């Protein structure tokens, strides 16, 4: 098997809170707390999880837009976490990000041409202004906009069009990996589908690899090859898309899947309603983070941190139920 494009090992991003005078930042929000996964070239890894579980922080940590606290990020055989600013800047053209809110991700004082031109000139793509303009026009065509839009300002576009500009900016520098941070959740459903299809088209024509962050399961199902389910800063289940939807293993995944509406009214669903709130990331529960809301909870869950268990090759779950060691507890 060839080397994965990106492999993340034990990534942690903690934010210090409550800096008191004599108690200097001993308290942390563990936004991302030990995540490991890999992404192969040309595939799409979907990341789902509810609000505040650390999906976006994880995406930004991989790009080092937020400095990770611990762990290793290998991208094309390069360790990203230890790169200095100059080397990191060079590597940035290889990893790009598409943001959630197309209204906040474009500078209102810059024209579309200037926004895309900046991406090009930062990485010395296109020698002259004329050549860059040509490239910008090509980019606009690629994402389904017209080259005549080049002199317009972001406020003259609709949400879907703005997101296309955001995508154009990301692909302008010929990246290998694009982290899409909930790129469609701010859009109307009809526009969502168009933008998702644009992602698919670009993936095929440009040979891109995606990490697709979302909280909408149907969206993730549509675009992903593999899916990671996040809960409170950890990936609790990582699996092939098909297996995950057919046979979710982790109790949290099961609850998520039961919430997906079905088109067939005859199918009676056993909806698993989670009770209680998501625990605070600053004070996560001991043992398994999910035990406070889990209906299969046993004593062991409250004290022991679950291991990552490879149930079948390529399918990981962090739950004691599937651990041989604790088989007795779940009888």
């Amino acid at each position, binding site marked *: 098997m060839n080397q994965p494009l990106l492999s993340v090992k034990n990534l942690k991003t903690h934010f210090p809170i409550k800096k008191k005078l004599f108690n200097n930042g001993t308290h942390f929000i563990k936004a991302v707390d030990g995540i490991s996964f890999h992404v192969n070239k040309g595939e799409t890894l979907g990341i789902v999880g509810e609000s505040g579980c650390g999906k976006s922080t994880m995406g*930004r940590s991989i*790009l080092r*837009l937020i400095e990770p606290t611990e762990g290793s990020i290998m991208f094309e055989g390069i360790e990203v976490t230890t790169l200095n600013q100059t080397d*990191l*800047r*060079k590597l*940035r*053209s290889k*990893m*790009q*990000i598409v*943001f*959630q*809110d197309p209204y*906040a*991700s*474009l*500078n*209102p*004082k*810059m024209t579309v041409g*200037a926004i895309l031109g*900046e*991406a090009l000139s*930062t*990485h010395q793509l296109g020698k002259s202004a004329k050549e860059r303009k040509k490239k910008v026009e090509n980019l606009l065509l690629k994402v*389904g906009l017209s080259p005549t839009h080049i*002199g*317009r300002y972001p406020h*003259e*576009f*609709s949400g*879907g*069009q703005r997101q296309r500009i*955001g995508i154009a*900016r990301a692909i302008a*520098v010929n990246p290998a990996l694009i982290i899409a941070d909930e790129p469609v959740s701010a859009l*109307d*459903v*009809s*526009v969502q*589908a*168009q933008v*998702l*299809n644009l992602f698919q088209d670009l993936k095929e024509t440009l040979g891109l690899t995606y990490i697709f962050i979302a909280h909408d399961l*149907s*969206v993730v199902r*549509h675009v992903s090859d593999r899916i990671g389910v996040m809960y409170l800063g950890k990936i609790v289940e990582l699996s092939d898309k098909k297996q995950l939807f057919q046979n979710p293993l982790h109790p949290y995944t099961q609850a998520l899947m039961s919430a997906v509406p079905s*088109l067939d009214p005859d199918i009676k669903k056993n909806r698993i309603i989670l009770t209680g709130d998501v625990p605070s990331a600053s004070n996560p529960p001991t043992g398994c983070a999910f035990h406070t809301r889990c209906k299969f909870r046993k004593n062991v869950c409250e004290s022991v941190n679950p291991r990552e268990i490879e149930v079948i090759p390529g399918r990981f779950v962090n739950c004691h139920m599937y651990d041989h060691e604790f088989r007795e507890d779940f009888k």
Partner: protein
Amino acid sequence: MLKSIEKNNNLLFVDPDPLDIKLSKNSFLNNFLNKIMKNKGAIIGSVILLFFIITSALAPIIAPYPVNEMNFDDSLQGPSLEHWLGTDEFGRDIWTRMLYGGRVSLLMGLFAVTISGTIGVTLGVIAGYYRKLDIYIMQFIDILMTFPSLLMAIAIVAVLGVGLTNAMIAVAISAVPSFVRVVRGSVLSIRETEYVEAARALGVKNWRIIGKHILPNVISPIIILATLEFGGSILSAAALSFLGLGAQPPNPEWGALVYVGKSFLSQAWWMTLFPGLAIMLVVLGFNLLGDGLRDALDPKSN
């Protein structure tokens, strides 16, 4: 939902709310001018300011008498047709002296705002963008802010010595903290936006992010503050001159005119009233214009 759309995968892109109305290129400027024209305060302020700027600029042409020529026969005359605003104790025409004084006062305001604005914006951007330097800059600014600005200006003049230039520097320095605070606050909010994050994700260098993404988006509060500070600086400069620390006689600065007139307050009210009125009107004009600009530049007001 998605499945049905999946089948029609080859649908052409149809935007649900097309915005293909031909917007004029300067829609922002047009919008801004429209709002300003509707704001009565801003119009009145601009008219007042234009009056003083034009009369000061044309002082050598429209002044009826030489500025420093004494004429003891006409000393302490009240307003009349010959001397519109009366004369001072040496028989000098107050209207003439006010015209020339306006040049000094307005220029002092201009220089003070330029200097304090440049220093303040630079420090504010650094403090807001480079978070590690923030605490040092802001603590220094906080120390400056503990002094009332006039008191600090007096202290600075005391150190540098009495005179117009030093008074101007003193006024400029005492106006720096407000610029730093306003700019830092705006930069703090802009640097966290996604378009700045996108620029960082692209590997755009810091100074380019500041120049292209941050400064253009904090320019509105800077313009508003500069307008308001303009009036404040003229007032501070006049106060310094009134205390005898700024413009020195026979230099006809407005504050200095009030200062001279105060000794003759019981005999010649016109010597203090008219320069004082000029100071008040100019400061009022700048404040009205500043408020108008604030409303017009606020994207939320429509």
